[in-house]
């Protein structure tokens, strides 16, 4: 199961995440791509292929959105492809870029993830209705908050977790994000503030939900011979994994994400990791909702089932804890432009491992990190393990 070629991340770029960007999706892609390129030591002419990740076309109202974004991402006059797994697209983008380079077809790849949700008026939540089954579910007027409320409820019930314990995740991530220059909703809040915030769909409260955002992220990938030449500190892609569960989400027990576990096991096997909780130094699980971080920590096998809340309460997941989780501030703090949010997590691991995370830097020279995203109908897990 070992890949023939090693692939490294050699540059990363990120725009500010914001509520309503004046820039078009193309411009956002351009800013992120340019920053990633200039930090990589490569020039645009050295880029042999481009990968774009962006979630539903319904946000922008653009059919074949990948083709529309091509020029902003640098995907013209060269091989260009858009891959897509809903909310998991951000981390899938690096997997896509990885196989482009690891296959030997290309030596370099620019990976760009963009999302502009604000084009969907009055609120992008309405666009999410179109992800549901047209016959069985859409007529109910479902939105994401509803199904997350169901999942959160089930998770809390099975593991006997309280709302207070889940609120701690919001408190931690929003605080971490204060140090992130791209952050949209960083603030210092208390558990009480979280629990007193408006109920969106019980038990989900406003401060437990990530915002809707506009933004873009980008990374540059290179094959080993190029990475060693142009980069002083290449960050290697050690393992990748992704997994899609059945469309019939209503038939599953939602308390545990099997698909994340399968994706994680695939990535760990490739990276040669036997005990993830010991061998992973830093984690960026997908946290669009506060309980999701805990849910995904368990799926990623970073702790036993039902234990994530206890670790959070003990402070283990703080930046200076034994296992820093979402040191970037995550989606709850930095913001959630769907695909770009996933790739933002990859950027964070890249900066942390290189020791370039500034005020967000976790102590102890971390050597290995995992980033994960999740999407579709509570259905897909995408995982990447990076190391130096």
């Amino acid at each position, binding site marked *: 199961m070992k890949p023939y070629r090693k692939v490294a991340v050699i540059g990363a770029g990120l725009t500010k995440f914001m509520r309503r960007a004046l820039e078009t999706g193309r411009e956002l892609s351009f800013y992120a791509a340019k920053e990633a390129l200039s930090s990589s030591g490569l020039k645009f002419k050295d880029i042999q292929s481009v990968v774009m990740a962006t979630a539903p076309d319904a946000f922008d109202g653009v059919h074949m959105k990948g*083709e529309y974004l091509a020029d902003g991402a640098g995907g013209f*006059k060269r091989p260009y*492809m858009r891959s897509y797994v809903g909310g998991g697209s951000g981390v899938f983008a690096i997997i896509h870029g990885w*196989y482009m380079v*690891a*296959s030997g077809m290309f030596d370099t790849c620019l990976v760009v993830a963009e999302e502009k949700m604000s084009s969907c008026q009055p609120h992008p939540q309405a666009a999410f209705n179109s992800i549901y089954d047209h016959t069985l579910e859409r007529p109910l007027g479902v939105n994401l908050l509803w199904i997350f409320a169901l999942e959160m409820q089930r998770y809390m019930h099975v593991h006997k977790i309280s709302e207070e314990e889940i609120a701690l995740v919001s408190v931690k991530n929003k605080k971490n994000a204060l140090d992130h220059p791209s952050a949209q909703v960083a603030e210092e809040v208390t558990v009480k503030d979280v629990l007193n915030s408006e109920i969106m769909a019980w038990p989900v409260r406003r401060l437990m939900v990530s915002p809707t955002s506009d933004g873009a992220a980008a990374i540059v990938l290179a094959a080993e011979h190029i990475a060693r030449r142009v980069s002083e500190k290449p960050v290697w892609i050690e393992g990748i994994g992704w997994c899609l569960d059945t469309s019939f989400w209503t038939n599953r027990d939602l308390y545990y994400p099997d698909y994340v576990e399968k994706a994680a096991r695939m990535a760990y096997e490739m990276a040669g990791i036997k005990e993830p909780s010991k061998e992973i130094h830093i984690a960026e699980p997908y946290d669009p909702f506060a309980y999701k971080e805990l849910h995904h920590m368990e799926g990623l096998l970073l702790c036993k089932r039902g234990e994530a809340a206890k670790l959070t309460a003990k402070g283990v997941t703080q930046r200076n804890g034994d296992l820093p989780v979402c040191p970037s501030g995550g989606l709850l703090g930095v913001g959630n432009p769907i695909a770009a949010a996933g790739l933002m997590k990859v950027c964070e691991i890249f900066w942390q491992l290189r020791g370039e995370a500034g005020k967000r830097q976790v102590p102890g020279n971390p050597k290995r990190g995992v980033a994960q995203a999740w999407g579709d109908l509570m259905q897909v897990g995408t995982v990447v393990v990076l190391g130096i």
Partner: protein
Amino acid sequence: MKEQRVGIIGIGAVPARSASPDVSYREMIFEAAQKAYYEAGIEPEQVDTFVCLSEDFNEGVSIFDEYVPDQLGAVLKPVHTICGDGLYGIASVFMQIRTGVFQIGVVEAHSKLSNIVIRGKVEEMGLEPLYTRWTGLHSYFIAGLEMRRFLYETGIKEEDCAEVVRRFKENAIFNPLAAYPSRISTEDVLNSRKIATPLKELDIAPQADGAVVLVLAREDAVRSLKRDAVWIEGISFFTGEPHIDSRDFGRASYAELSARKALEMAGIKNIRKEVNLAEICDVFSYKALQHIEAIGLAKKGESGMLLREGFFDFNGEIPVNLSGGYMGIGAMSEATVLYQVLEVVKQLRGEAGNRQVKNAKVGIVQSWRGIPTSSGATLILGV
């Protein structure tokens, strides 16, 4: 470790048709998948990775990959969408297998375009929203502009384009999977309703519904499954100029560049001597001639003449679109090109029946993503 070859070991499709009110896309994909797995001699559990091809607005569903795993037997497996036509899917699985991590991969594409009430409106959403869309340009209008420019630059006549339609629709008579086989005259095409002069109604490939599934495998897996594979010798995809307002309308740069790269990968120096048959994208009649020239089967401006002389016919030097192409099979957004791949696979295996080309060893397939894109791919298959 030495890089191993990747081959197609199974391919299944449901017959294309103009509408399919009696079956869902799930049922069509299931049928195609069963055929493909049976031909490959595998169970879906043996597959390591799945790629499905779709664009949300064509499906009327956001995040379409949500709805593919069950009918493919891909639950709790690596599955993802590529927003591209069939050849992009093949390229994607090809690259995944070539990393050394995967052995067997599946590509799926389908069309349920008959569900769309006003297709022109969906295509209009593909235009750049700030500077271009407000003009309300219909995709056929843009095709008309392109056709005019192409005819002007090359001196090819509308009659030549009509010949394309006549011949390809006739080829489709022998293809049991085609939705639009017919015998028509060039006058029928020339006298059909004007859409955006010089583009006429019969210059446009009619849409269809269908589904197709392919199984790809690495050399060692092909051997252990004891199958005869049709090997992928070359593959490339390319995006040219993304703005329709600053593009060279006379040329198909994506086809030129992807074909050059794919031929180079396959080690083919002279396409006209070394390739035995071709399947090209003919979603509009003039596009067929433009693509024939772009990939090097004819010199600039000569494709019409060669076509008239029978160079691209069944008995000609290099038969083109024996499947019937988009004109004969039907336009199925991402899926049609995989029906064309199916044709080449059958030909190279010697299973094409009464349309079998003698001694077919190498075939080329070329695709285009349609208006308003300048993205396309080329695949070279060999035995």
